């Protein structure tokens, strides 16, 4: 949306250029939804339909008794757009709660990555050495490959992947960000 609006600035459209856009911020949103068919499509559809960004997405049922799922989305936008995203999500019928972990404060973000490196000789040894530094565990190995399992922040996973590139990186699978607030508070105790 923002990009489209920016482009308009130069065009001779009869529409005004739209409000000036501020700097983009990245926010981690935890969305608690009823786990019913189509709920993920509905949440994603809101993002695509309204031109919001999704940088990362994870989803799984977290409460099997009540059938509730937790969707964690990392999105970027101006502060106004982020507000708009949260309010629009709250309008969806199956959405029970939306919490912005970024504005909420201290929270933990983790990603799990499985990283396949195929190499031999010095490069193979170096990859193992670096994995040790990053506390990545080899979970599969052959004479010419490793699969490393790594958890950490997005930045840490990115850094490890970058290091593996010259050492024979062939494949990466990442979960996207899972996030939770620090301390004793949960979503249910906090209201906006």
């Amino acid at each position, binding site marked *: 949306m923002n990009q489209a609006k920016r482009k308009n600035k130069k065009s*001779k*459209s*009869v*529409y*005004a250029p*739209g*409000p000036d856009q501020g700097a983009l911020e990245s926010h981690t949103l935890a969305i608690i939804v*009823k786990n*019913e*068919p*189509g709920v993920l*499509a*509905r949440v994603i*559809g809101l993002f695509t*339909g309204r031109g919001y960004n999704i940088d990362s997405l994870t989803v799984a049922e977290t409460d099997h008794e*009540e*059938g509730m799922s937790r969707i964690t989305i990392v999105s970027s936008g101006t502060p*106004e757009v982020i*507000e*708009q995203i949260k*309010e*629009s999500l*709250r*309008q*969806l*019928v*199956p959405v*029970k709660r939306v919490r912005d972990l970024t504005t909420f404060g201290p929270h933990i973000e983790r990603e799990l990555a499985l990283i396949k490196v195929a190499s031999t000789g010095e490069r193979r040894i170096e990859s193992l050495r670096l994995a040790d530094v990053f506390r990545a565990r080899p979970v599969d190995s052959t004479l010419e490959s490793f699969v490393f399992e790594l958890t950490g922040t997005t930045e840490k996973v990115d850094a490890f992947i970058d290091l593996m590139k010259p050492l024979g990186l062939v494949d990466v699978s990442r979960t996207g960000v899972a996030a939770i607030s620090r301390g004793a508070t949960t979503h249910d105790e906090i209201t906006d």
Partner: protein
Amino acid sequence: MSTKEAKTEAPKTAPAETKKLTGAEMVIKALIEQGVEVIFGYPGGAVLPIYDEIFKNQDKIKHVLVRQEGGALHAAEGYARSTGKVGCALVTSGPGATNAVTGLTDALLDSIPVVCITGQVPTFLIGTDAFQEADTTGITRPCTKHNYLVKDADDIAETVHEAFHVARSGRPGPVVIDIPKDVQFAKGEYHEAKKLEQQFYQPKTQPDMAAIEAAVELMASAKQPVFYTGGGVINAGPEASKLLRELVKETGFPITSTLMGLGAYPAANKEWLGMLGMHGTFEANWAMHDCDVMINIGARFDDRVTGRTDKFSPNSTKVHVDIDASSINKNIHVDIPIVADATEALRAMLDVWKKRKYKADEAALKKWWDQIEKWRAKNCLAYKSDSKIIKPQYALERLRYFTEKDARDTYITTEVGQHQMWAAQFLGFNEPNRWMTSGGLGTMGYGLPAAIGAQMAHPDALVVDVAGEASILMNIQEMSTAVQYRTPVKIFILNNQWMGMVRQWQELLHGERYSESYTESLPDFVKLAEAYGGIGLRAETPDELDGVIEEMLKTDRVTIVDICVDQKENCFPMIPSGKAHNEMILSPDADQFDKSLV
């Protein structure tokens, strides 16, 4: 939906009730429990079991057979908008469902509560490109407030009940229930509607009192205030309109409204400034631009209202009451946001105003009204009258004159185009729910089926569809429906032979290159009406007009009135897209229109 809860409740019902019913039986039973009196629909393979039940329950529920599914949705909208109840439609799978999409989107944008049941191919055929299969929940997800695919007969009753709850609560909107044919045949357990507090969906309706107090204090200190109200006041129910009237009376503030909000405040009262926005009045738009305090109740700062947003009402402190929190700060930044139902917010505002014994700043308000009177004196809706050619505005003035004399309650629907804007400008509405128009989506073809829906709900009322000759052809087949059910709607065509609104933009903005906006070979509307079994009338000159309108009001049959109006008339005032409120163009200075703006 949580089926678990409902299942544990089941033993409470009488033993006779636990007897299993087919899915189709439960659909109808649930609709009856929800108070549905009329369903607008069209049959097909995937809904035949439900149609079978309609046949058996003719005494309890009336089915209106439209002539195209699009008509069913608009008729349900007209029914809903004119009654405040949820409208109901029933269509088959595949093409039935895709034909419903425009009406669903229309209802979404104008916040109209509608429940549409669609048939689906049997569950074991879903995903096989079966005959008349369409991914209905996929297609309608972005154009409904919510939708359901029911795969288990045990879930049917609860889904129908929840759908009605969702459609009517919070910001109302359309809901689709897609039911595969095998589920309609399968037996299951019927569940009665859950209590309100047991529903999962619980939108906030009560205002934050601190915000209300801040808003009222601001109002009491305002020097140049204006109320800007919208469809939310209508949707909140007649009580909201009553409270709004009282609040305007208490404060003496001027009031304007959006296209969707017309009728919430009487056009006859002196505080009424007329509609605002692209084709709003000079006084309404200038008051919006120059005000120091703006109180928005149930409107959403739509681009047709704000014009250029960075120049929108630059000096005002803004209060915004909306039931949909995502509408607040979406287009325009406001100072006091209040998420609440309009009735509750208005009631709270009035309470605080009276309890605190607030008084408006009389001296400042007088100056403000003096200014407004100067804007009013521009007489922005004036048009050049003509003795030979019928001016569209004149035709509407005469329509207003005769309908006001008529003892019946009058409901007006419109199609989309110049005639729609003229109707909004010239027909004064004094009560809510009397005006039905496609505002957000601007759907040509809306007016006739919507009129049928309104007439179904109000058989003794006078229902007029103010139409353009192009729009009416988009759903003209519904004439046949109107005749069949003896819903004597009056179609008042302002026939300018052009897609007038398109022609106007081409004249003003596209160098008078009239690309495809003239309709050749229009039908003879008088004969067309007769072909459908209705009455056709025509007025070609101003002196024929009154007689034709009187005759239209006399007959109890479906009538098309073909009013041959000036082909070149433009709709003014006009704020070109992307311009500010104080840059509006009045009809006498239309020549100064900046034609380079493309």
